């Protein structure tokens, strides 16, 4: 699917069988297979220098600390942050978004301030803001989705303070016009949160060039481990924000009366972190750095999947709102329910997602209760698409449509 030599596509999950068929995994927008480098990096930590970080004055702890901090530096380069201290390790995109909502919210938001999100958001970039709104009394405003998606001017109110938007919809693969929107926000000194969970696997993200204030993504969507993600924040902002989780390792001094917090990034990393996860995440970034991202139009497997799905009667959903930017294809098929499609495909070893895709508000707008979603990863092949199409023919046969 990309320019990498096959030998680099070293994923132990490839070639597995399920239900007596070759596993054809087409749910990469949900989570990806882990690269062998990733698993090896985690295993190395667990078998060669298994220790806690930051406080141990002994070899394996110092080694673990070094490896852990090196990943921070990798992430810094990966998204072109200015400093390592702008990179906070979290449990995932959801954890990062909750951290921002809680900590930025408590430090900077006031009653009647407006928080703007888009219509394409994943639940994880909706609910934390709803909570802040109900706690602080802010107003949640939705940028309307429109046909050509070139939303002219966001009707920011006077008290608009935050724009929290996904780069790419996990449900339909369509992008928000983030550059345009960031520009509008910056003109009014509105802070910008980018949910890059679906963007990072397919695009080089440059936080300085984008001039976003925060950016989040997850390790498990870029061929890395579960339970680890990133919060990027501009140093100036992070410094002024209150800590989110508190406990060991994020303090300078603790008495029963008061506590002085540590500097960045420790301030936001309380407790023993997911050390093996972070180290595996570093290996995943190495892999993604090697991928030559290509425009979706040049992705022949994606184009083939799309054409063949349409030929067979699938209606691709969401294109009316813009070009699909990442290899995500969500569709309806006659009036067959997505769950029936998924169940029957599974019998042929084909894994697709079916349901509301953690984007119920968008599905309401699209006026569909559920979708079938096919999403590709670096390892998907021509063969996988053939299997998918054969699978869908089989679905129709089983259901006698």
């Amino acid at each position, binding site marked *: 699917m990309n320019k990498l030599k096959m030998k680099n596509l070293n994923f132990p999950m490839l070639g597995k069988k399920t239900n007596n068929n070759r596993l054809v995994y087409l749910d990469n927008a949900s989570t990806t297979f882990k690269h062998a480098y990733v698993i090896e990096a985690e295993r190395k930590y667990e078998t060669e220098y298994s220790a806690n970080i930051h406080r141990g004055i002994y070899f394996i702890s110092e080694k673990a600390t070094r490896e852990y901090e090196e990943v921070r530096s990798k992430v810094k380069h990966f998204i072109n942050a200015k400093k390592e201290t702008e990179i906070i390790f979290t449990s995932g995109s959801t954890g990062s978004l909750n951290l921002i909502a809680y900590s930025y919210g408590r430090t900077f938001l006031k009653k009647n301030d407006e928080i703007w999100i888009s219509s394409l958001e994943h639940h994880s970039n909706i609910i934390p803001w709803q909570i802040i709104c109900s706690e602080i009394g802010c107003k949640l405003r939705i940028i309307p989705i429109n046909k050509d998606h070139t939303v002219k001017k966001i009707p920011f109110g006077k008290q608009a303070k935050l724009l929290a938007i996904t780069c790419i919809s996990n449900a339909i693969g369509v992008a928000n016009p983030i550059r345009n929107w960031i520009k509008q926000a910056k003109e009014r000194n509105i802070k910008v949160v980018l949910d890059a969970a679906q963007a990072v696997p397919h695009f080089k993200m440059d936080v300085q060039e984008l001039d976003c204030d925060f950016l989040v993504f997850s390790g498990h969507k870029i061929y890395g481990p579960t339970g680890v993600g990133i919060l990027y924040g501009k140093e100036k902002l992070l410094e002024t924000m209150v800590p989110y989780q508190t406990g060991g390792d994020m303090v300078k001094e603790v008495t029963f009366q008061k506590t002085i917090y540590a500097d960045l990034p420790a301030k936001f990393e309380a407790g023993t972190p997911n050390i093996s996860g972070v180290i595996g995440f570093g290996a995943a970034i190495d892999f993604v750095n090697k991928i030559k991202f290509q425009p979706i139009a040049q992705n022949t497997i994606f184009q083939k999947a799309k054409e063949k799905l349409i030929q067979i009667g699938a209606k691709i959903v969401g294109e009316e709102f813009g070009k699909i930017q990442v290899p995500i294809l969500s569709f309806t098929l006659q009036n067959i329910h997505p769950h*029936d499609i998924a*169940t029957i495909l599974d019998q042929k070893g084909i894994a697709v997602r079916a349901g509301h895709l953690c984007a119920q508000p968008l599905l309401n707008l699209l006026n569909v*209760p559920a979708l079938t979603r096919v999403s590709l990863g670096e390892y998907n092949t021509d063969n996988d698409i053939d299997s998918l199409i054969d699978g869908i023919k089989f679905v129709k046969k089983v259901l006698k449509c």
Partner: protein
Amino acid sequence: MLSEIYGDLILDHCRNPRNYGDIHNATHRICGHNPLCGDKIELTFIVKDNHIENIKFKGKGCAISQASASIMTNELLGKTTEEAILLFNVFHEMLTREDFSEKNIFVDSFFKKAGVFLNIKNFPTRVKCATLAWHSFNLALKENKPQQNDNIN
């Protein structure tokens, strides 16, 4: 295995649901919802003289949940509430108990219809599709509230 769950009976009931609609003067009304998949069902029925005098459902969902609702309404129509609860229990046990065997089914005629769902057990993520209508019915009946809104898990 697949043909066992997507068999003719289920496909027929899914395409041509029986008792589809709304009873506007229902004594019981419930909106069942399976949050995991988004399936929704609106069930209305009339209990009179301890009998289920009329029962209808409306809703969107997969073949399993639609067929199950359709078959259920067929089976429950005209039954006493005690009989209905018994059938609910049989159905529920059939889909959830490891040690359930066909021998336990003492309601032969019922099993001829609802028994098509027995194989759903082999599709664990789909069990709730088959039980949604039944759970909704049971809840509405038990709480005996003419109207309510609830989530069934």
